[in-house]
């Protein structure tokens, strides 16, 4: 059985069993037993909803620091397009790239090329696709995991492709290893990320296999270094250096939840953001209601990656700045176009191992699963159906399933057991 790594850890001491995280979890992965929350790892999709819901600081994001990559001889930053919308407009992309160098990176990768390659490859994939529609983008790691866990029938509708950041990792290692004469293991490809989930997609890719990236650092970790660099350049009155990334509009479009319409012009396309909205749309897909849609671009964070849990600026302000930046940039630029034309024939975007539904731990064989479904049905009849959560499971249905799996008792329900009620009163004296 695979052990799933996740981007969060729970601090038992700080947890007071308030149920907020359990109620926020979109895949019902959290239970609160004996006053403490715990996660069922095989159901967690790393969306970060629990982290936002916890007011006690009991759920902590595990992040990587740049210092952790000190053992690499050469560290290359792959800047998420979202980064360019995080600073005041007076801080242009070229200063941001210099800020990354000041923060401790040895080079900043020209990621716009990989994103443009990705856009092209996605358009080609959609063109050739003869299977079920709509297709779903694979760029948001949470969406990929949501489908694997909650919509297993839709896994084949996910684009079975490496995201552009993986392509960038591969190419930059090749490039710098040739240029510097270093073995590629000594070159670190580090994604400057707007969210936790990207870290997990590198530590444990959803499809299995191994990431070409070495890790991530969150935007907050480089933020101050970039601002300091901007101040230094401003004070010295020097000329802005030449832009090496974000030279044209397409790259920055990837920071918005509508990155792809420009390559999918004749497709019936929708863009959906925010997990509750995405699940509503996926439910409709499963009911066969969206047969007229060819492509769904979706992101777990509301309003897209600009709202990731490792961003600094307000998502709407970030979007407005990106729009202003894009308006000042050309629709394409010759350097990017030449690189894309040179690399496209040689890039293999297809996943080596396709995405597959996630196998649940301890699900048992078919007979055991049937037994559990039958028992859960019986148990559910005896439960009140209020979904109050006081039993420590988010809904009566989940409690019924836990009972059938031998992980809970019907008497965990406060309406079925006076004892449980008294126990809760002891834990939360204010409700007594």
């Amino acid at each position: 059985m695979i052990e799933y790594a996740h981007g969060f850890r729970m601090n038992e001491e700080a947890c007071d069993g308030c149920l907020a995280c359990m109620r926020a979890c979109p895949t019902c992965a959290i239970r609160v037993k004996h006053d403490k929350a715990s996660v069922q790892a095989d159901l967690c999709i790393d969306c970060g909803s629990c982290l936002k819901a916890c007011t006690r600081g009991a759920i902590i994001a595990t992040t990587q620091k740049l210092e952790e990559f000190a053992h690499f001889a050469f560290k290359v930053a792959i800047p998420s397009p979202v980064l360019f919308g995080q600073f005041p407009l007076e801080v242009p992309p070229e200063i941001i790239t210099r800020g990354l160098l000041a923060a401790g990176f040895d080079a900043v990768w020209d990621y716009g090329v990989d994103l443009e390659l990705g856009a092209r490859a996605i358009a080609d994939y959609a063109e050739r696709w003869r299977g079920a529609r709509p297709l779903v983008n694979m760029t948001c790691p949470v969406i990929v995991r949501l489908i694997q866990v909650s919509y297993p029938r839709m896994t084949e509708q996910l684009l079975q492709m490496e995201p552009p950041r993986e392509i960038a990792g591969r190419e930059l290692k090749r490039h710098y290893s040739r240029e510097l004469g270093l073995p590629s293991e000594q070159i670190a490809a580090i994604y400057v990320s707007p969210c936790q989930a990207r870290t997990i997609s590198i530590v444990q890719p959803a499809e299995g296999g191994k990431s070409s990236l070495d890790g991530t650092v969150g935007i907050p970790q480089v933020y101050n270094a970039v601002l300091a660099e901007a101040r230094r350049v401003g004070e010295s009155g020097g000329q802005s250096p030449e832009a090496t990334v974000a030279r044209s509009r397409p790259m920055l479009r990837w920071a918005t939840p509508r990155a792809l319409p420009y390559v999918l012009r004749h497709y019936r396309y929708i863009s959906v953001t925010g997990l509750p909205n995405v699940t509503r749309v996926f439910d409709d897909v499963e009911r066969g209601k969206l047969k007229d849609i060819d492509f769904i671009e979706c992101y777990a964070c509301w309003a897209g990656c600009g709202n990731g849990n490792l961003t600094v600026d307000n998502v709407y302000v970030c979007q407005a700045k990106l729009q202003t930046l894009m308006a000042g940039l050309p629709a394409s630029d010759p350097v990017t176009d030449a690189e894309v034309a040179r690399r496209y024939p040689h890039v293999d975007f297809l996943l080596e191992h396709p995405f597959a539904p996630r196998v649940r731990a301890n699900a048992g064989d078919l007979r055991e699963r049937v037994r559990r479904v039958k028992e859960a049905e019986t148990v559910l009849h005896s439960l009140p159906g209020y979904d109050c959560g006081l039993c420590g499971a988010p809904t009566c249905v989940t409690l019924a399933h836990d009972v059938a799996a031998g992980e809970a008792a019907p008497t965990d329900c406060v309406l079925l057991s006076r004892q449980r009620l008294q126990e809760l009163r002891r834990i939360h004296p204010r409700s007594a």
Partner: protein
Amino acid sequence: MPDELLSRSFAIRGRDFERAGEASTEIKSLLKELEIDPAVIRRTVVIAFEAEMNIVMYADEGTVTFVLTDEDIGVEVADRGPGIPDLDLALQEGWSTATDEMREMGFGFGMGLPNIRRNSDQFSVKSQVGEGTVVSSRISLDGAP
């Protein structure tokens, strides 16, 4: 015969377009809960849905019965209705007796029975004009059709 592990029966009323599709939706969530292979779920649900729609569109009433065994899934659909006078014709893709009203709702393109047959590993249909129709399908759990 392998042991029956689980079965469900759904009563379907003819012309009840409001509730049409509910039985197949329920079968789908049951199969999902049982963690049946997604490809098998897809085929079973297509069969159940098409059969359910056939009852809603043409018959007075009927039942959809779903049976799970260790080896396969059975879907049997029996209705009381007009019956099918020419089964060979009804099994041809695109042949339909649907009214314009049904077509406006997106049904009746003559794919119902052919679709059921295509998605089944075993398929049989018996019909008596003026009495009704019984469509039986089996989908094996472990393989492609």
